């Protein structure tokens, strides 16, 4: 079930909202159970066959969490290894088995050896997200950081439908305490109002900006995959279209998840902070997919040694983290190379800082830094979006003008959409300025936003989005 579908907006969500607060009148645990069951229904809508896997995953991890919590005996470390192997093994089996077999067969073909039969495993949606979420829980259990132990709350933390399919990657310490709070189970208009604004903003980003951009980006990448050779302006515009599409699509999804969650009084962390305003790659990664960046930092980069063992190890750790982060996005060499490119860019960025120190640049310097960062990110997106390396190389050739500078003129609509998208990204205010996302007091901006006139305009924007629901398109990050 998509957030941007009639079934979700007009049947599933209103029903769950009503049932949750009706159940909360009887007991908070009943309400949490209702939300957990609703989340399983939401997940089962995609694939009923995957529901037992999800249930088995959170039951097993809850049990493992108990075993790992100190004082848990001498075998705690053994339990941790077993838990990691089980979770990563599950992820590897479902997400990477096809990839490994394909690559192994390519090697075997070179050696004239017999091929391995392809397993053709169907990827359960959201497996990367619920596996990472639970790995963090297990590590924290082992480190003795986990306080909340309620099974229903744990099940809800893992399955909670606003984040289940495409994140944000949640941390139990952000979520489980909220499930225990009595005010979560009361209708609070001040929270719902912010939820409405954030949800409609996300819906707008997805339907009115990302989807139209996606048509242009798809046209470029598909034409190259079909053997086309894009000329200079077509290649650049197509890549810019994709850069803005993925931002508006994914941040739109995150906003919708955050907004929906606020209807239940539950705060999800902000996942984007105007990443295209970044003036360095380091800053970009502190603004883009913040929850994943935080996970990779705390549960991969730091355990690898972080920056504690000298410059070389730091750079190596960065590269490994980004390579694995790339691979997390999908079983394809394009994602591995995308991660590698970002790893190298981060290393260059750190090396620059080490050599020249952190400087306060003037306007021209900041503009140059911004341009270099945005260019680097866009060039990397080519790898991320391409079906294979050959397609990416052909687009790079087009961007370099190697396929010529003249061709069919890009439509004025595309140019206008890219310009508007860029303006929104660079000049627009970020949603984390709203209270209840950062729990800051309402600013003047928010107080002005909370007028009945704004509410009517928001309702109209919502109606326009609903009109554009006719062909629901899935969110890009669902595939990861």
């Amino acid at each position, binding site marked *: 079930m998509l957030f941007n579908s009639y079934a979700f907006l007009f049947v599933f969500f209103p029903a769950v909202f009503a049932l949750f607060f009706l159940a909360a009148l009887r007991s908070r645990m009943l309400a949490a159970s209702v939300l957990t069951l609703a989340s399983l229904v939401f997940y089962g809508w995609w694939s009923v066959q995957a529901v037992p896997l999800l249930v088995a995953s959170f039951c097993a991890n809850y049990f493992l969490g108990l075993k790992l919590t100190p004082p848990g005996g001498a075998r705690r470390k053994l339990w941790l290894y077993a838990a990691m192997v089980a979770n990563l093994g599950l992820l590897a089996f479902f997400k990477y088995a096809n990839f490994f077999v394909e690559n192994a067969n390519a090697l075997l073909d070179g050696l004239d050896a017999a091929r391995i039969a392809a397993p053709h495993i169907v990827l359960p949606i959201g497996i990367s997200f619920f596996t990472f979420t639970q790995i963090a829980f297990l590590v924290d259990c082992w480190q003795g950081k986990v306080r909340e132990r309620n099974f229903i709350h744990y099940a809800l933390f893992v399955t909670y439908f606003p984040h289940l399919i495409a994140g944000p990657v949640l941390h139990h310490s952000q979520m489980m305490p909220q499930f225990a709070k009595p005010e979560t189970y009361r209708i609070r208009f*001040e929270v719902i*109002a912010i939820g409405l604004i954030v949800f409609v903003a996300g819906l707008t980003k997805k339907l009115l900006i990302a989807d139209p951009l996606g048509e242009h980006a798809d046209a470029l990448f598909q034409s190259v995959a079909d053997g086309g050779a894009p000329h200079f302006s077509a290649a650049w515009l197509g890549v810019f279209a994709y850069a803005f599409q993925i931002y508006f699509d994914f941040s739109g999804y995150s906003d919708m998840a955050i907004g929906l969650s606020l209807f239940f009084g539950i705060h999800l962390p902000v996942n984007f902070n105007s990443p295209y305003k970044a003036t360095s790659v380091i800053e970009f990664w502190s603004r883009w997919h913040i929850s994943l960046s935080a996970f990779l930092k705390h549960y991969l980069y730091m355990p690898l040694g972080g920056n504690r063992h000298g410059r070389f190890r730091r750079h190596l750790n960065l590269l490994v983290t980004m390579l694995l982060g790339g691979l997390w996005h999908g079983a394809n060499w394009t994602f591995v190379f995308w991660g590698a490119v970002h790893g190298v860019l981060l290393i260059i960025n750190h090396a620059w800082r080490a050599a020249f120190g952190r400087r306060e640049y003037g306007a021209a310097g900041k503009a140059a830094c911004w341009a270099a960062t945005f260019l680097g990110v866009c060039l990397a997106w080519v790898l991320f979006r391409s079906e294979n390396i050959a397609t990416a190389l052909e687009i790079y050739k087009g961007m370099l003008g190697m396929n010529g500078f003249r061709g069919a003129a890009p439509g004025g609509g595309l140019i206008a959409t890219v310009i508007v998208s860029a303006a929104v990204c660079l000049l627009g205010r970020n949603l984390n300025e709203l209270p209840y996302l950062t729990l800051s007091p309402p600013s003047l901006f928010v107080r002005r936003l*909370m007028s009945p006139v704004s*509410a*009517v305009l928001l*309702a109209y924007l*919502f109606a*326009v989005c*609903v*009109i554009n629901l006719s062909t629901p398109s899935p969110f890009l990050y669902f595939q990861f």
Partner: protein
Amino acid sequence: MARRFVLSFFAACAALSLVVAFYFAYPKPFFFQAWEFFSLFVYEGHAARSQTFRESGDSARRYLFQNPVSDNRVSVNELGNRVACYESRLERRPRVLLIGDSQLFGSGTGDEGVFSSHLCRLYPAAIYNGARKHGLEMLKHPDYGFDAILFTLTERNAANGNCAGSLEKFDENAAEPRTRESYLLPEGRDRQPWLEHFQAGIKHLHGFLSGRFKAFALGRWFPPERHLDVAAPHRVNRSDSVARNVECARNTAAYFKAKGIAVGFLVFPAHQTLYPAELGLQVDAVTMGFVDDLSRALSEAGIRTFNAKACLQAASRERAVYNRHDSHMNAAGFGALAACLKDSRLSPLFE
């Protein structure tokens, strides 16, 4: 503050929902022309095939109030074609198929005033109006047969090579058998699913409401008195337009001649070239001369053709031959056109 905001949002949503409910219960006031309503409701099996419709015109939709309006009876047969006189004259000969676009359909004109109705009154022939639905595909209908085809080339669509498109499509599908059921409008079991119908309808409603809001915001209350606000003049912007159309018409005539079906071409202008000064339009020389150039070239190629420009010019001196706020001809215009055709070299197609 927040409570008022949330309640205002849902109140606005409820009001919009009421408008949507009203629209689906009684949709006609949300349409300016019957063809839009027919595409969304009648052709999808959600409304009766004969409707009395209050029509204004394409360019009048930019104004809040519609003036003038005319109540037209618009009826289609069970195949979706505008009612003419084929079924009632099954035994008559010749049987003539009319091919064309919304002009031939009679957009903005009641059943009695459309071109095919005028021809039905002038000739005893069995005449079928194939506009907007099926077109040349009618030749494959197991229950229908035709001795002649009249192509009506409007200034706009002739220039777009409409003739070539129709023929190619027909030829591509020539081998495909068609059942009589495949021609019928959906009724009951095979009508468009409600969700798709809702989605298509809601898009129209949004366009309508946006247009009303825009007209209100711009202070456009009533349409102007004369034909001054026709949407955008259509330009013939390809130097090879005449040659392409002649080539197409030649192929078409030869194709159907080989099948024993006579073919004729009726070429007529839009009002932009008929009286541009009254419309306040600057029409370029290529566009102005297109209908004459095309007709001349068709005749020189030995194709049976009639240029209705002079005839309509003469008629327009006495009365309006086009709808006031629309690019379509009115009943008087179609009457004049049919009368002129009666005296032209196309008349034998109907005799």
